[in-house]
């Protein structure tokens, strides 16, 4: 069941050629959208050109108005959406965007994997109309999902293009100098990296699992909550069973700087996956790399509707710890979740801290089977609800 995602002796910046199966699935879904029905809902306009399928919109009948007057759940004002282009990243793309860096084989035969990460201050829109002065890795929040394979040598060149000092602190096993910790290693160019300076972090890819990296400059809460974090995945040597994989970084934004979050989300934009449900295949394995970086709140949680998942805490074991439908995580806790959806339809996922759910941390999985357009009429219902996304 090992997957062929790693062609370890070649530079694989783009995973797509390695993950051929992924492409075919996307094509399949894209075809479904085309065969499916006219895009009555303007969902995924931005995404449609990017290789990620737009969900097939609506069935033949006009959208139902049953939603009016009902309050299915919290949402943003109708008809407004985030300008993903201005943001420079799109949560739907970000979901399956794994950054494998550049690889080459060292004389020893070991694989060296390298990335360059640039810290930059950037205004992003975290909810329709709400701008936030974020601090980013590579211009996006969360930062790129760095993905390597157990045992490789990793080298991350960090350039601080921000106006503030930053670091990259990886959760992993490494030397103190490589810890991205201010006060340790400044004399050797490490520690706190001042604006305009750079540093190369080098360490082994171990242990396998789902980890994270973030800035460790004081005040820590500010540096993290501003957006300096990302997922860091180390695949086991033998790989994991083939699946539709995605990254979910649970985060939040304290837009008025009162040390409490106003917007909660997975992958930054509140309610994004409500407006653009995550399209997943039926009866196929879905793997979620879930990382909680939420600042100012002690716990976060993940719950999925109509289903159960296998929970691999920190992803450091190949044996699941529990079959469940809800887990909680403190900050920096993370896990791999594996599940299959047996039936078509829209299935919500959200923080089971209801407050977070209603302040943006909610989304839907959309199960689409070309042969089952019945489910699409359910979809049409959602699209006419007050929070139905993308409508002009």
């Amino acid at each position: 069941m090992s997957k062929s995602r790693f062609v370890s002796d070649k530079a694989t910046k783009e995973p797509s050629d390695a993950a051929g199966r992924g492409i075919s699935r996307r094509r399949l879904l894209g075809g479904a959208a085309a065969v499916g029905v006219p895009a009555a809902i303007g969902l995924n306009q931005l995404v449609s050109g990017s290789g990620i399928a737009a969900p097939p919109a609506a069935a033949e009948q006009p959208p139902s108005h049953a939603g009016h007057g009902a309050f299915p759940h919290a949402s943003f004002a109708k008809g407004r959406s985030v300008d993903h282009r201005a943001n420079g990243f799109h949560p739907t793309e970000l979901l399956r965007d794994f950054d494998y860096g550049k690889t080459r084989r060292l004389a020893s035969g070991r694989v060296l994997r390298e990335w360059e990460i640039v810290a930059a201050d950037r205004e992003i829109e975290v909810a329709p109309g709400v701008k936030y002065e974020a601090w980013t890795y590579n211009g996006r929040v969360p930062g790129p999902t760095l993905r390597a394979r157990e045992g490789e040598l990793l080298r991350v060149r960090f350039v601080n293009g921000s106006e503030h000092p930053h670091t990259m602190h990886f959760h992993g096993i490494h030397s103190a100098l490589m810890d991205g910790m201010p006060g340790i290693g400044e004399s050797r160019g490490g520690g706190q990296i001042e604006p305009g300076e750079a540093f190369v972090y080098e360490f082994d890819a171990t242990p396998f699992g789902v980890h994270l990296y973030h800035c460790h400059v004081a005040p820590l809460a500010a540096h993290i909550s501003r957006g300096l974090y990302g997922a860091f995945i180390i695949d086991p040597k033998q790989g994991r069973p083939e699946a539709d994989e995605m990254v979910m970084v649970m985060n939040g934004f304290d837009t008025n700087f009162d040390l409490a979050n106003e917007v909660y989300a997975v992958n930054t934009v509140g309610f994004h996956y409500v407006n653009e449900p995550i399209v997943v295949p039926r009866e196929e394995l879905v793997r979620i790399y879930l990382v909680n970086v939420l600042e100012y709140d002690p716990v976060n949680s993940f719950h999925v509707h109509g289903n159960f998942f296998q929970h691999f805490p920190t992803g450091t074991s190949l044996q699941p710890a529990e079959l469940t439908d809800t887990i909680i995580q403190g900050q920096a806790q993370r896990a791999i979740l594996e599940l299959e959806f047996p039936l078509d339809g829209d299935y919500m996922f959200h923080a089971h801290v209801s407050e977070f759910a209603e302040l943006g941390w909610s989304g839907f999985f959309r199960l689409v089977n070309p042969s089952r357009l019945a489910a699409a009429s359910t979809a049409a219902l959602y699209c006419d609800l007050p929070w139905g996304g993308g409508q002009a």
Partner: protein
Amino acid sequence: MEAGARAERSLGGGLPAWALGVIPLVLIAVAIGSFALLGGPGLGERTGPPVEEVSVEQTALHPGQIELTLRNDGPDPVEVAQVAVNDAYAPFSAAGGLEIGRLGSTTLDISYPWIEGEAYEIFVVTSSGGTIEASIPVAAETPEADASFYGLMALLGIYVGVIPVSLGMLWLPFLRRLGSQWMAALLAFTVGLLTFLAIDAGLEGLEIAAEAPAAFGGASLVFAGALVAYLVLAGIDAYLQRRAFATKPEEGSLVARGATTANRATTGGAYLALLVAIGIGLHNLGEGLAIGTSYATGALALGAFLVVGFAIHNTTEGLAIVAPLRGGGESDGASPGIGRLLGLGLIAGAPAILGAWIGASAFNPSLAALLFGVGVGAIVRVIVQIAPAMRDRNGRLLYPSTVAGMLAGIAVLYLTGLLVSV
């Protein structure tokens, strides 16, 4: 003086008086114009993030809907981005647009399944991520402003204003039986009542002003209202006395000086009663406003207990009005007719109806603060007017019976006020 006159002559030249008045205005206009044309030389770009100051002027609740009226109180335009009710984002629309210019306002229609009797905290997120907070302490449907609603408010005004004040005036025959030595003490009692009312109204005004946009004056509106009311009443007083002096010279002048003659007591008593009625009426305007607003926003549960409380509380105001009518004793021939008493009762009580109407239909914290200030100013003016009649032969204001009277007045109002503290 000589030097000043000379300077004026040399500065003014041969210009007519109107030109001398206009020249500074023209110069001001030129200065402002050139300052603006040159883009404010020397000031440079303002640094720092935009200043967002927005106040919530009104909240209204309709089934499944919360209406918030926001006013931009700061120097920069503010753009509304999202609205959350009790920590849940809610769909909303803004007919007046999302952007609020300086001193402009907009109304947000928020879809939310609110439940009667619950409390709601709303935060509005602006485009810069700032928040504007509003709270609804007790949710209740905002009454539609139709005829029956205005009827209810009128009834409310009559309950808490007209009826109790009129009832309080029924003490007049009792007061008349009291010996003349009680006169000063009774007036002192009225002064005590009024002093407490003024303090109470002033504090309430300041409390409301704290929620009002600072750009419209905020707390200073209370003081401005008080000053305006005081000056206007003083002006009316002076005007009436001049007329009275023209017809009955000796009486008018005596009232003006607050001298103590039996003659003054009759005419002056009726006059003082009228003044007290006006002062209390202006105060009741503010009280009605507060009641109407609380009722409309659901903050006030209109229990029978509360109405009874207000009635007892305001009965003391009727007593304050008739105290000056008691007369000085032997020469009180002109007993005021029922018509006059009713008139006084209406002057003092009816403004509560008007206040309730305004408060329930078009509440505006700035206006409310101003009206409370007006009530305070009116009461202070009345106190100043009554005080001279309390003087004893030696011209003293404070002596045992007046001090006791004032303390009694304060105590009575305080104790009855406990019935209506919500």
